[in-house]
């Protein structure tokens, strides 16, 4: 098989970067497996319990960049108790012991402690990049260790983490010699920020491209920061309240005009609406705009801003923009690829901010759209059918109708046909989230047409086990299936246990699977971890012979090559 010396093959492999492709390469033959594993620098682990750090390091000793994901997706919505697991500590300990030259660590939904961060900062002299998304368990003291000890730190990117803010001086822990920062994102911190330390840090970071501030950074500080970082590409504005005539505001206007490289704008965590106009001069350069936290900005101001953004590729917005606002987006943002419309009112039943009309308008105007997340109060089959016709290129289609089980508001029927049209037309669809009134029929369509579907989220849908069976049977590329409050039970669960080896994980909560069914799977498939999460002590799962009728509240099963995990809390029962 090998016509070239190993070094040449390795050099060729260097050009192959995607994880999928590299995984495929390693399966070709023994010698390619060997070459690939020694040259592999970046590893992605979608489920931290599918493998352990020792085996990881044995296979990839030259690891430089590691991505780890912990809790299942529904943990984002409080469906997984805090102490469930996903601890990064054992990983960092193992990596430190092995002296691997770690440079980059990206974690999602994991429990990170100050101890972990301290160990991380001291163990890898070349450490450059830390990205934490939806993590928890640490404080600003941990950040101080990273700032103080990582001499070559390039990226410190904190996205939507729950961080205990000790309002300390972590920003001043960056030594004066630290001039290598490229990304600094601390938007999720709640506490006060040492503005002087921040300004000095930004001033001595000529490579700083991405800066995202928290709400404690006021407008005058923003003006000064932008003035000493005109090279900024990605800006997250913190607090944004001030008089239009005031001096800081005028300074800001001047600074913004100089930021000709600015392409991405976000934040506005506390915002006074009329100040948005300061950004109008650079809007035509923007490719990404995230105003989804700016609840105080009225739709008219949003529209005025968006009218200038004709190069926008990514837009995250609140539904307060309204159907009218979405129509403006549709006629202005012809390059739009990704749209997310978040709810500004969680309880629902309020004014109908965006409806199916907004979605249809977007689909008609933005032909390059491939990813959408849309929260709305109502939907119709007709609208979805039109959207499918307009946009057959969807890769991700996530629709959330706020009221569970809501039917087509015109016909009062289920939305099966609408979603059916989407899966039929969008041949490259990889991710789908369903909502509204849905019967088994929609799953029949999904199983039949969604050939590329990898992730499916189901809530309050379906009638019988047939629904789930259609999906398990038809979607050959399914990786993550998460279901809540739907009438699927043991029959569906047990129909094809081997299917779960081809998937990363299955989540089922408030469905109709029983303890007996779960035990059966655990018996048949020892290569699966079958976890039952039962927080309600009164519902203690008992071995009393009635397992066939004891319904399980939350089931999470996933393939693993390292068996049962040992760090599970008492309320998690691993069968």
């Amino acid at each position, binding site marked *: 098989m090998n016509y070239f010396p190993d070094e040449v093959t390795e050099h060729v492999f260097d050009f192959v970067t995607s994880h999928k492709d590299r995984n495929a390469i390693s399966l070709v033959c023994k010698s390619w497996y060997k070459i690939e594993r020694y040259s592999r620098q970046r590893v992605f682990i979608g489920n931290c319990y599918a493998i352990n750090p020792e085996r990881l390091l044995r296979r990839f000793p030259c690891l430089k960049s590691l991505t780890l994901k912990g809790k299942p997706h*529904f943990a*984002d*919505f*409080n*469906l997984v108790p805090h102490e469930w697991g996903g601890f990064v500590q054992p990983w960092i300990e193992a990596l430190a012991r092995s002296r691997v030259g770690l440079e980059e660590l990206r974690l999602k939904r994991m429990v990170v402690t100050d101890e972990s961060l301290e160990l991380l900062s001291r163990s890898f002299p070349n450490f450059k990049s830390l990205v934490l998304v*939806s993590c928890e368990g640490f404080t600003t003291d941990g950040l101080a260790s990273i700032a103080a000890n990582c001499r070559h730190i390039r990226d410190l990117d904190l996205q*939507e*983490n*729950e961080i205990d803010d000790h309002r300390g001086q972590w920003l001043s822990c960056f030594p004066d010699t630290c001039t290598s920062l490229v990304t600094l994102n601390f938007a*999720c911190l709640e506490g006060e920020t040492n503005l002087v330390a921040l300004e000095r840090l930004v001033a001595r970071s000529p490579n700083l491209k991405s800066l995202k501030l928290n709400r404690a950074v*006021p407008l005058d500080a923003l003006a000064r920061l932008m003035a000493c970082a005109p090279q900024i590409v990605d800006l997250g504005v913190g607090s944004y309240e001030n008089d239009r005539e005031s001096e800081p505001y005028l300074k800001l206007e001047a600074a913004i005009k100089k930021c000709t490289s600015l392409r991405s704008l976000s934040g506005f*965590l506390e915002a006074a609406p009329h100040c948005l106009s300061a950004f109008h001069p650079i809007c035509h350069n923007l490719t990404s705009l995230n105003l*989804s*936290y700016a*609840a*105080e900005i009225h739709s008219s101001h949003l529209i005025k801003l968006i009218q200038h953004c004709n190069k926008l590729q990514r837009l995250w917005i609140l539904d307060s923009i309204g159907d009218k606002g979405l129509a403006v987006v549709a006629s202005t943002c012809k390059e739009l690829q990704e749209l997310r419309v*978040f*709810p*500004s*009112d*969680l*309880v*629902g*039943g309020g004014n109908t901010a965006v409806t199916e009309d907004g979605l249809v308008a977007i689909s008609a105007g933005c032909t390059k759209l491939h990813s959408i997340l849309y*929260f709305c109060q109502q939907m119709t089959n007709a609208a979805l059918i039109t959207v499918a016709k307009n946009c057959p290129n969807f890769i991700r289609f996530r629709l*959330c109708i*706020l*009221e*569970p*089980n*809501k*039917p087509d508001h015109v016909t*009062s*029927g289920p939305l099966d046909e609408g979603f059916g049209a989407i899966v039929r037309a969008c041949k490259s669809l990889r991710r789908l*989230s369903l909502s509204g*009134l849905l019967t088994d029929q929609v799953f029949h369509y999904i199983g039949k047409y969604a050939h590329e579907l990898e992730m499916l*989220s189901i*809530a*309050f849908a379906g009638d019988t086990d047939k629904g789930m069976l259609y999906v398990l049977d038809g979607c050959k590329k399914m990786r993550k299936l998460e279901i*809540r*409050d*739907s*009438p699927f039970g043991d029959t569906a669960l047990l129909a094809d246990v081997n299917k779960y080896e081809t998937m990363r994980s299955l989540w089922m909560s*408030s*469905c109709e699977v029983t303890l007996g069914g779960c035990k059966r799977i655990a018996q048949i498939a020892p290569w699966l971890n079958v976890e039952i999460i039962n927080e309600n002590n009164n519902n203690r799962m008992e071995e009393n012979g009635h397992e066939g009728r004891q319904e399980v509240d939350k089931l999470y099963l996933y393939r693993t090559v390292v068996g049962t995990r040992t760090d599970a809390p008492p309320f998690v029962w691993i069968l």
Partner: protein
Amino acid sequence: MEKVGVCDEFVNLKATELRLGLPGTEDVCQEEKEMVSCGKINKRALPETEKEIESTGKTETASPPKAQIIGWPPVRSFRKNSIQAKKNESEGQGMYVKVSMDGAPYLRKIDLTVYKQYPELMKSLENMFKFSVGEYFEREGYKGSDFVPTYEDKDGDWMLVGDVPWEMFVSSCKRLRIMKGSEVKGLGCGV
């Protein structure tokens, strides 16, 4: 035989009841279980009503239960908390402001709309932080205590609590800070 009869009657009553329950909620489950246990008899005797129950259970979603469903809508907690906090602050559902006291390890939050005048507010703060605020004088400020209540107004300036009329205070106060000791002198308390 009797048992069966009872079951039938029970199901009959249930059959005519308009249900708005969501699948997965206890009531519906209960109902389904009852139907299942009387299932065989039910199916033979009342095929129509069974269909009826299924359709009414699902399509009648006229008024949604306002009760919060856990984890719904599927919005990340971080974002949810942010929206909730903003709503509470802006919707006249109370005017919540943060209160810090020099030396205290954490802050508190109070709803200004709960009070009618300054004395009430002072009393509440005194209780919350276990201190005494002294007496307010128009020209000299607070005398008789090491603690002085101050607030940050809409312009970002730190003001002495009590100088402006109550309504103006409530509408312009963004946060409160109970200052202590030496810093107090700088506020021009007229001493």
